[in-house]
């Protein structure tokens, strides 16, 4: 027994015999466990929040849901793997390059699938994005195959211990990038002409075009922007969860739930919704039952929709005049 354990727990010394094993067992207190659930929840929730923000940007301008949003996330991860691992470009260059490439895909999506629509109703746009999502997924399968890919984390794999819980360095990057996205988007929508024009389209497209805003251009900008944010989400999550061609759909479902929970169209709502869903999943899995963790998030979503159909932070007045 003592013999075999030395190679089982490779590199660990100081344990002799079975009693030694039990004494040295790393213990974890309940409060550390709670903290660990919270850390995990916030990390995953940040990704959901990024996907939800992407949904919101396009929704605000077009009132349509972009079903290819999850595909942007998947592309972000896989393009980054290609540039970082296959071409071996350092993160500092490959990250912006990946975002640019996926943004191009977003622009193409608008030019090839959305703009040619002769009667751009919400339903037509939604169906166009569903078609595009199948196409992008199929193309990714052709290009990358079906196996999952790994991306080296930005700053090593050594976890950081924190009050008995562990934090993956990549988790900090995920949360950090969410903060960057929130700050940059806030500045963009509040301080720049382009951002204000996008907001104007969100409020009233026909009035916007009357004051000289090209609504079609704004739709293009919204697709480019949400592709960029989706790509960033994919890039930062891949070192944690790996990435394969068909993962986008699941992330899109979670992101959409976050979006609806927080109030569709609201950016603070998207962040709140994303983090809440992440936390509930993680706490539910840890404290109640891991088999039903998705149920808890969906129950909360249903409950919120019963009480406040416009979502947690959505504007009830606005949601009444929305088409969708």
């Amino acid at each position: 027994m003592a013999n075999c354990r030395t190679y089982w727990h490779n590199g660990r010394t100081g344990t002799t015999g079975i009693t030694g094993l039990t004494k040295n067992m790393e213990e974890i207190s309940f409060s550390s466990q709670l903290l660990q659930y919270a850390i995990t929840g916030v990390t995953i929730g940040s990704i959901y929040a990024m996907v939800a923000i992407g949904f919101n940007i396009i929704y605000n301008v077009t009132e349509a849901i972009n079903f290819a949003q999850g595909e942007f996330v998947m592309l972000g991860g896989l393009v980054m793997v290609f540039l970082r691992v296959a071409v071996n470009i350092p993160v500092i260059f490959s990250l912006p390059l990946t975002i640019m490439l996926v943004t191009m895909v977003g622009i193409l999506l608008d030019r090839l699938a959305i703009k040619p629509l002769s009667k751009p109703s919400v339903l037509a746009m939604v169906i166009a994005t569903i078609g595009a999502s199948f196409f992008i997924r199929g193309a990714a399968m052709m290009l990358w195959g079906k196996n999952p890919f790994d991306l080296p984390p930005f700053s090593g794999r050594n976890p950081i211990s924190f009050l008995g819980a562990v934090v993956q360095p990549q988790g900090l990057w995920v949360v950090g990038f969410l903060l960057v996205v929130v700050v940059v988007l806030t500045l963009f929508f509040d301080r720049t002409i382009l951002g204000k024009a996008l907001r104007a389209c969100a409020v009233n497209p026909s009035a916007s075009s009357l004051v000289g805003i090209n609504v079609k251009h704004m739709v293009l900008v919204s697709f480019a922007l949400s592709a960029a944010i989706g790509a960033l989400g994919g890039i930062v999550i891949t070192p944690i969860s790996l990435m394969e061609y068909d993962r986008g759909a699941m992330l899109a479902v979670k992101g959409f739930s976050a979006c609806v929970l927080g109030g569709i169209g609201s950016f603070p709502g998207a962040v709140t919704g994303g983090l809440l869903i992440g936390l509930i999943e993680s706490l539910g899995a840890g404290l109640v039952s891991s088999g039903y963790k998705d149920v808890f998030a969906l129950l909360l979503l249903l409950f919120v929709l019963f009480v406040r159909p416009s979502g947690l932070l959505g504007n009830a007045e606005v949601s009444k005049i929305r088409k969708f």
Partner: protein
Amino acid sequence: MKANRSVGKGAVCLLAAVVLATFILIPVVQVSAAEAYKVGAVFSVTGRASFLGDPEKKTAVMLQEEINKKGGINGHPLELVIYDDEGDSTKCALAVRKLISRDKVCAIIGPSLSGLSLAVLPEAEKHKIPLVSCAASYKIVTKNPETGEQWKWVFKTPQSDSMAAEAIYTHMKKHGISKIAILSVTTGFGASGRSELLRLAPQFGMTIVADEKYGPKDTDMTAQLTKIKGLAPQAIVNWSIGPTQVVVVRNWKELAMTNATLYQSHGFGSRKNIELAAGAAEGVYCPLGACNIAEVLPAAHLQKKVTMEYLKAYKAKYNEAVSSFGGHAWDALALVTKALGAVGSDKAKIRDYLENLKGFVGQHGVFNFSPKDHNGLTKEAFQMVVVKNGDWALTD
């Protein structure tokens, strides 16, 4: 006038005779040029289970080429009709019906998934056609779990989940482990493994302190593992396939849970998984079939030759590593080929031959079929291996 008429009659008779003769002769000519043996295959080549179907299809195609290059089966070329079910049970059922009624194959290999195999086995039974499944669940071959009665026309090549669970528990018992936690993915594969682990636990004196689950596309299992860490088991058994099993290994390493030995199911059997785990898989145990560990098998091992040949040929043709799943397809097609060579393309004879086949050395074990066992393998078809220096190493 009379003579004329009889000449006309003669001409008509002659014409009829020629036409008849051609009708009768043409098939005869075809047979003498060795009619191809048609074998059907249904794999999940694309879709959610493509990691199973893709190597299975590649293996089957490779094996078919090898057989035909050597002159076929007793002079008959082997014709393989492969359909992709995309992991969808409706498409799978359609493909099987198409193989039976339109392609008129004499045997079917596949499907890749247990759920789909269960869905199509009534078709095989109804049309009396041998079906050699490449999916693991024991339910595929067992008609009545109480009496152990087997489905008449259905066989399968992969080891049952219960054998993997037995192999893991036997190893644990030998190393004094009795307090364990179970992690499983909420797919058919995970659920089947989980139920076998729970069922067999009392027999091996295992106490299960946690029974956690996660979804097949989940991004992180830290929450489940944190809960397990709080319960301090001696070992964790994880039962899943695809990227999640790699994420579990990484989370286990990050949470510094090396005091709880991690056992993976046989689904972990690809070097790609060790690679993807990026160093975190060191010290992880799993039960594997011989085909996963051909290089580390001792030279005297019964399966050494057949597994090494497959490994080299596959690597040369596709430039990728073999996986367990390709091995299951190899076993299935090689079994059918052997039966065709021995008894020809008669469906009932193929079935009877397979049912009584003994000592067939395949990729995943030495098959000994019997009317009571349409899988033909025991838990000895699994070797316990440990990940050491980024590769598999045999362990006792």
